[in-house]
């Protein structure tokens, strides 16, 4: 199976380990992975801020970059959902809309792809630790991926998973919301951090770099010892226990 990997801009610049792990994991599962170099950002910052004309141009660029792929797999539920959203940006019935629709049908978030397409729930990973998982809003509510990450994590040897209280609550990132309404965003991330600490987990996992950057940034500022990792990093761990 051939996969064109969508690393996302945050993944490219900040969460390099998540991208590396995802690529190695997919290869471990028998996929052939390429990286279309022209890829940039999904355009979500502009879209959510109301700059739809600008987003349209970004969408065209990404459609052109990925449309020849067999499958596109990304490491952020939110960015993958944005690609799915392109269909609604283009004029109804237009050629661009058809191209966006084709791309949508073959674009998946990493855990979704592993569980739904590869039909694998045990990736053979092992990792010693006590973890809790942050369900990101766009991935669960908009992309509709609710179970896949948990199925995969349940099968990681040595990993103890603890439920995060109020896990349905947003972490307060919200793109430009985090700087435009930073005082409200801070309260939201604080509440999330409180719940994470309640679990006594030493590891926070998630499938969206943006949420992890937000929660991780607050944990780091608080001097917390909770480690923050992208789910791909755990699923790609195969050390001896």
């Amino acid at each position, binding site marked *: 199976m051939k996969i064109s990997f969508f690393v996302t801009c945050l993944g490219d610049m900040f969460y390099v380990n998540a991208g590396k792990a995802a690529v190695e994991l997919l290869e471990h599962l028998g996929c052939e992975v390429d990286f279309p170099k*022209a890829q940039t950002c999904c355009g979500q910052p502009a879209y959510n*801020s109301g700059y739809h004309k*600008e987003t349209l141009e970004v969408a065209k660029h990404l459609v052109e970059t990925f449309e020849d792929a067999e499958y596109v797999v990304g490491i952020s539920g939110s960015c993958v959902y944005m690609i799915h959203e392109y269909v609604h940006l283009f004029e109804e019935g237009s050629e661009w809309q058809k191209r966006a629709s084709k791309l949508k049908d073959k674009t998946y978030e990493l855990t979704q792809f592993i569980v739904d397409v590869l039909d694998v729930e045990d990736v053979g990973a092992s990792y010693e630790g006590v973890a809790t998982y942050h369900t990101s809003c766009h991935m669960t509510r908009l992309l509709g991926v609710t179970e896949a990450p948990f199925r995969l994590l349940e099968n990681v040897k040595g990993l103890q998973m603890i439920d995060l209280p109020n896990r349905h609550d947003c972490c*307060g990132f919200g793109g430009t919301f985090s*700087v435009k309404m930073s005082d409200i965003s801070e309260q939201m991330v604080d509440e999330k951090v409180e719940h994470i600490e309640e679990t006594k987990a030493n590891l926070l996992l998630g499938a969206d770099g943006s949420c992890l950057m937000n929660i991780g940034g607050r944990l780091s500022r608080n001097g917390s010892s909770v480690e923050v990792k992208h789910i791909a990093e755990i699923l790609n761990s195969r050390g001896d226990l």
Partner: protein
Amino acid sequence: MPMHIGEKDFKKRVTKGLEDDFMRGAVRSAQGRLQDKRATAADELGDWEDWRTLGSEIRSHTIEHLDYYLHQLSEKVAELGGHVFFAETGEEANEYIQKVATEKEAKKIAKSKSMVTEEISMNEALEAIGCEVIETDLGEYILQIDDHDPPSHIVAPALHKNKEQIRDVFHEKLDYLKSEKPEELALFAREKLREEFLSADLGITGCNFAVAESGSFALVTNEGNARMVSALPKTQITVMGMERIVPGWEELDIVVSLLTRAAVGQKLTSYITALTGPKQLEEADGPEEFHLVIVDNGRSKILGTEFQEALHCIRCAACINVCPVYRHVGGHAYGSIYPGPIGAVLSPLLSDYDEYKELPYASSLCGACTEVCPVKIPLHEQLIMHRRKIVEDEKKSTLSERVVMRGFEQLVNSANLYRTATKMAPFLTTPFAKNQLITKGPGPLKHWTHARDFPQPANERFRDWFENRQKRGEKNA
């Protein structure tokens, strides 16, 4: 604008909310309770998503044919001997209501809960002509005696107060001497209100749903006060927002079930009262005279726009009860009697962007509101549409934001420019970073780093790693 509450400045309202620990505690615990009850009530049905679809279809059909159903309703009410007044604005509605009150020489007016009368500031209009208006919904009653504290929630208007605060208000204003137990507080209010019902000259109700086919009005309460307001006074006025209508009783059955389950997690509320016109010859009770005031006040200008779905709202407040922004800032911070996600969508539409330009941005777009809405209004998408309108039609975004977004577009549309910029990023951020962390960011980043660290961009980007690995031929190892 009458629907505006509190300080003019959005930031000041937010700060006030964030600093109010009592309010935040009360809201947090109420939200928790209401969320759990709603989820249980929805699960009980087993096919909640099908119910939502049905609810959405009913609302969509009704609003598409609003002129037809309003005409049918008006005809029915007139047939039954009621008077119908269509008010284009809040002022027109108030003038009509004042006229009726004057004709009836009404001194005391008993009123059940109604958001549309808050929206048009009807109480103030009636007080201006010397009437005494008594709120009979317990929450509204508490706020009224607390020097007209504005509502902070559309179903539970006094949600921002805890029981100790309510006890103190009763004590200070009405010499209440008992405890903060909800039962004792409610009993006290009940005794006080009973006197008011019996001596009121005029009853005014809101309207949860008008039933077009029979000219009836359904009122949903847990206190039975709407029934008292409509049964005792000789004259009754019902005020409705023009979209609050269903075609018939079958549809009413469905939307009422959705409303009570979504709003308070109940199969049905204690009282669901349906009123049909004034007292008929063969009937024992009910008002002798009945007036219906249908309020437009900006609603018809929403019809046919990308915001039409906002008119599907059945005012259950489920979106408010799950909203994390509302939880932290409280209802008053929205500056509108319609707070939370639906308030952020509706307020700029019923008023304008000058007054409510910040509200569409007071959301992390987490979609919790969209997920719970019993009639499937895509609330977070409507907020994005507002943002788009502010940027593209109103041209009200800041110059700096426009410059940034233009730059963003150019950057991400050019693979080369993007590659160069991301390669430069770690070097450009070095002056601000320590141990790969930025703790005091420049420019807009300073808002982020006020409470959070920001990671420094990596020296070896993912794309560098991938390329190097390919070059080394490790991929197939």
